[in-house]
C-alpha cells in the first residue's frame, strides 16, 4: 500500500517544478504550461486524498479545476494573442512598459 504522503511528496515536487518553470522561463507559453503543472500537482494531491479519505469531494474538485483550467487556457491564450499582435514576442520579460 502506497501511503498518501508519497503522493503528497510527488505533488510537492511537481508543484515546485511548476513554480520553478514559472519564475524562470521567459517564454510565456511555457510559463503558462508551468501553471498547468502546478494545477496537476494539486490534482494529484486531491485525487490521492479523495482515495484515502474514501470521499468523492476531492475528485469533484479536480473536475472543476480541470474545467477552470480549460477556461483559463482559452482566456490566457487569447490574451497572449492580443499581446502578440501589439508586440510580437513571447518573451514576456521584455514587456515592461510599466514599472517603478
Amino acid at each position, binding site marked *: 500500500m*502506497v501511503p498518501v504522503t508519497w503522493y503528497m511528496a510527488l505533488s510537492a515536487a511537481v508543484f515546485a517544478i511548476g*513554480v520553478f518553470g514559472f*519564475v524562470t522561463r521567459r517564454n510565456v507559453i*511555457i510559463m503558462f504550461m508551468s501553471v498547468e503543472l502546478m494545477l496537476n500537482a494539486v490534482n494529484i494531491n486531491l485525487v490521492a486524498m479523495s482515495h484515502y479519505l474514501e470521499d468523492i469531494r476531492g*475528485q469533484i474538485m479536480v473536475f472543476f479545476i480541470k474545467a477552470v483550467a480549460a477556461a483559463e487556457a482559452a482566456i490566457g491564450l487569447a490574451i497572449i494573442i492580443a499581446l*502578440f499582435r501589439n508586440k510580437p514576442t513571447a518573451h514576456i520579460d521584455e514587456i515592461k512598459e510599466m514599472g517603478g
Partner: protein
Amino acid sequence: MLVELFFFYFAAAVIGLSLMVITRKNPVHSVLWMLLLFFHIAGLYLMLNAEMMAAIQLIVYAGAILVLFLFVVLLLDLKKEIGEEQYVGVWPTGVAVAVALFTLLLIMTRSFVAGPHGNITIERVRELSHPGVVGRAMFTEYLFPFEVASLVLLVAVIGAIILAKKRIKE
C-alpha cells in the same frame, strides 16, 4: 510491493517529464512532453481507483487544452524566441525558491494527519461504478458549482472572442 513499484515508476516519470516540459526550448516539444506527462498522471489516477478522473485527464487536458496550446504555439511565430536566452536573469533565485519550497513541503508532509473518512468506500465505487459515483455527486450535492463552472466557461468564450478576434475595421 508491485503497487509501490508502479508508483515509483509513475512518480519518477511524472517528475522527469515535468522537468522536460519546462526545460524545452521549443514550446512545441514542451507540449508533446506534456502529453506524455498527462498519460502518466492518468495512470496514477487509475492506481487510485479514479477511472473517471483518468479519462477526463486524457480527454479534457490532453485532448482539448493541449491542442489549444499547440494551436496557439503554431499561430504565433516563435522562431526568434527559440534562438534567444530561455531563462530570465534571476533564474538561480528561481531554482533556490523552488527547491526551498519543495523541501519545505516535503518536510511538512511527514506530519500530515488524514482527516475523517467518508462513505465512498472502494466497495461502493465498485457497486456504482466510478462515473456513477461522480455523476451522482455532481448533480446533487455539487450542482451549484457545476452551474457556476458553466458560467466560467461562458466567460472564457466571451473573453477569448473579444480579445482574440480580428480588429474591427474602422
